[in-house]
């Protein structure tokens, strides 16, 4: 009976008007009223206060909207907010909740791994997820992991350097990094 009831409720048609949506953003449960068409990116930026994830291409191409879903980088622009319910959503704001920057963030600053900075939250999250999974990555590992993040300023060599330094992996000089591109 309970199973039947669950099934019945699970197949309930929701929307197109706003429906209650519960999201766990940076460890905090938040309640929203969202139409099913609202993407996670839209929910974060325009229905919550977490503007760290950026909207650029809005087509799963640039990586500026990258957030972590249960620790895994995904594009928030191509995920419906209702489908992120029950998952741990981490935005760049969640990396340093007390204002103390992480090692990755510090190395992005030290290595000057950005110019305009619009892609930076995405890169920082992608690199943070990589180091959580693979604490001593090679340069190739970093490049592969970052292949879904674009930087139109072209800061890639310094992003790679920042990632490797944050991992405590010896890096080649900047010139050598550039010739390996």
């Amino acid at each position, binding site marked *: 009976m309970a199973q039947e009831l669950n099934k019945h409720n699970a197949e309930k048609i*929701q929307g197109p008007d706003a429906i209650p949506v519960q999201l766990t953003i940076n460890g905090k449960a938040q309640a929203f009223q969202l139409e099913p068409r609202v993407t996670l990116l839209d929910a974060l930026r325009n229905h919550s206060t977490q503007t760290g994830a950026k909207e650029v291409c809005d087509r799963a191409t640039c*990586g500026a909207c990258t957030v972590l879903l249960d620790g895994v980088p995904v594009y928030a622009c191509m995920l419906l907010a209702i489908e992120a319910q029950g998952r741990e959503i981490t935005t760049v704001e969640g990396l340093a909740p007390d204002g103390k920057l992480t090692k990755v963030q510090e190395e992005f600053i030290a290595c000057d791994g950005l110019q305009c900075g619009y892609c930076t939250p995405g890169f920082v999250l992608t690199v943070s997820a990589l180091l959580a999974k693979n604490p001593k990555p090679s340069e190739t590992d970093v490049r592969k992991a970052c*292949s879904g993040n674009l930087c139109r300023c072209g800061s890639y060599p310094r992003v790679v350097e920042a990632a490797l330094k944050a991992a405590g992996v010896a890096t080649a000089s900047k010139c050598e990094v550039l010739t390996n591109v």
Partner: protein
Amino acid sequence: MKAFEYVNAQTPESAAGLIGTEGRYLAGGIDLLGEMKEYIATPARLVNVKNLPTTREISKTPEGGFRLGANVTIAELAAQADLPAGLIEAAAEVGSPQIRAVATVGGNLAQHSRCWYYRQRDLTCLKRGGSTCYARDGENKYNAIFTGNPCISPVVSNLAVALTVLSAQAVVWRKSKEVRLTMAELYADAWNNPLAQNSLQPGDLILAVEIPAPVAGVRSSYLQVSEKSDFDWALVSCAAAGSVNEGKFRGVKIALGAVAPVPFQMEEANALLEGKPCNEASANAAASLILATATPFSHNGYKVPIARALIRRTLLNLAK
């Protein structure tokens, strides 16, 4: 995006019932949401099929083959070391890490055309029901060099190419029962019909892909050439499977991607390779046969030599 209703289906039967005439199935959503943001697709309802039983699992079939649930992500597939090498290589080339984390096996197979005239919301090209294929006399760099209809949009699913040579079958929920389609059958309609992306009928849902049990000595290989080394569509892709016994090709199958509306294969080329020595001359002979009927357009003649090189490399990989 146009507003829509959303519902979580629990069984294939209810999913097929819920989709109606105006609905679409939602899995990873990478392709579908892209179409919806361009108003190319304006479904009134999305039926989430990610909770259908066993569709997120990779399991063994009773015959010793693999059953890949349609909702297995591309990342999960790429990390499954006991699958045939060609399939893992094809999965690893799909999109970016962020895309592979959510995109699914079923979605990869069922994704729609990437032709930029099709994806341009202000145009109604032949594939969208208009009267003109703008690519034929336009910017056709990424389009097909083989086609059986006036549309020259190529199939872009990496997995379809690898699965073709592995003799895989798609398990499709059709009219309240499971039917099995070979990869050739799954795409056959796209060869003849400019409006078709594949042979799926309204309401059809891919539930799984089944790969026959691996045979000792049979290897597979997938290679693609793209403009970028990562996170790019294939300009041309090629997969081969088969064995090399005492230096001779046995039971080899070869297929090309991104050159035709279907994973392009030629039985005559497979037959030609049977018993031939595994060397460049045999591979080139097969490539010449396959490419003899290619009809490149103004900007995509470069695909022919790339296809030739990839046919040669994938075939020679079978001996490695």
